[in-house]
């Protein structure tokens, strides 16, 4: 299983690699890598990053090209914000930004959150958030301060989380990646 982690400059991009490398052939690539170079991808992770996606989308490189690729995609933090806006959602600064521990309420256990309890602790670090999710997307988890903590596309295997499954303090983080890779493996085998 080949997974490319698109590096949008996050503090924890390398952590995503660290978690994934035990589960798959994972590589970090720059976010201006031509999509053609990623033709052998079985899955993509769009990392977080410092750019405010709402106002500084230029620093998000070729993320919109990657979203056209027919592979399962997992957007994390800025990655989720970018894909949400790309498909027609809206972004804005959080009224009450989240840094550190957040209690996550999971409302769908069908895919990324399979096998997890309804309430878990996750860690977040974000200034902006998804204000309205795109048509054709569902919210799959939320917190008191951020309604769209996780989203899923109904027609394609595209997922986003506002928090950070790759950091040590997030409960069930590796399981979330494992669930994502399972989806990718099913997708590959048709």
């Amino acid at each position, binding site marked *: 299983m080949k997974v490319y982690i698109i590096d949008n400059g996050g503090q924890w991009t390398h952590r995503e690699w660290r978690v994934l490398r035990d589960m798959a052939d994972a590589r970090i690539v720059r976010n201006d890598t031509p999509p053609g170079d990623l033709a052998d991808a079985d899955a993509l992770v769009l990392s977080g990053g410092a750019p405010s996606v709402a106002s500084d989308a230029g620093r998000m490189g070729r993320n919109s090209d990657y979203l056209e690729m027919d592979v399962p995609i997992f957007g994390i933090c800025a990655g989720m914000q970018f894909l949400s806006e790309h498909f027609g959602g809206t972004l804005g600064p959080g009224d009450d930004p989240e840094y550190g521990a957040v209690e996550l309420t999971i409302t769908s256990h069908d895919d990324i959150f399979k096998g997890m309890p309804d309430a878990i602790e996750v860690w977040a670090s974000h200034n902006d958030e998804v204000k309205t999710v795109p048509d054709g997307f569902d919210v799959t988890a939320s917190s008191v301060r951020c309604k769209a903590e996780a989203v899923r596309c109904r027609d394609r295997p595209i997922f986003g989380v506002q928090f950070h499954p790759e950091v*040590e303090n997030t409960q069930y983080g590796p399981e979330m990646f494992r669930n994502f890779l399972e989806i990718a493996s099913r997708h590959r085998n048709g």
Partner: protein
Amino acid sequence: MFDAEKFIDEAIASVREKTKGKAIIACSGGVDSSVSAVIAGRAIGDRLLAVFVDTGLMRKGEAAEVEEMFRDTGINFKSVDASKEYFEVLKGVTDPEQKRKVIGEKFIRIFEREAKEFGAKYLVQGTIAPDWIESGDGVRDIIKSHHNVGGLPKDMDMMLVEPLRDLYKDEVRQVARKLGIKSSERQPFPGPGLAVRCLAEITPDNVAVVREACFIVEDEIRKAAEAGKMKVPWQYFAVLLPTRSVGVQGDRRAYGRVIAVRAVDSIDGMTAAHSDIPLSVLNAISQRITSKMKNEVNRVVYDITDKPPATIEWE
């Protein structure tokens, strides 16, 4: 899962392949540089010289401790007292990024000097993943310039060898245990040393204040952990704040310094939660600092922020 044994074999082979000739290694006595030194030592043997720079910004007794530790490893070792030089270049520097750059540059100039004398063209460093991640690059914001990455001058004339670049602290510790390195469980200590814990001007006097306060924090926490009152945090220390506050000592007005106590729990340093230290232990720390150091400090506060939004060290 991370396989320490396999990593050691690959790292030795890789250092051996990259290092054609002599190398020096920058050693602080911490687990990252000690592991790098042992790996490099196994790779190139006598062609390696370990250099410890006493910046004057080290903790109590640290220089002697490091020397003793290296004596046991059989690696060529040299200690350089550069404290005067450091206080000189740090005069008047208060901006945290500037501080780290000045210290990083000084480190390199000293290592260049030592490398020349030893005839080395390579500099081995114990850089680990958070160091280069937080130092920023094309796509990443600079959170803080770690002296071994962001603090390096552009015109440096040595080639870098960084065997631990993709590792995090918990993995380095696993490697250290495999190699039987003494400092495997030592708490992290930043490259720029007490300079980033001294938010007041960096003078020998101010550094002495924060050094003693750090020693008291470490000592009280060690005692409390031995007594079963708490577990040893990932990292714990004191910070001298650049402010004064009013107090009363034996009916006399005091206008003294403020010490912030910081203790966090973490696995890899990339996220951290403030430690849940029992109030009785915090109280013992506060009492000991404010009585033993009564001429300098009359107030102690405890930092209860996590990372994010704070970082572990204050600068």
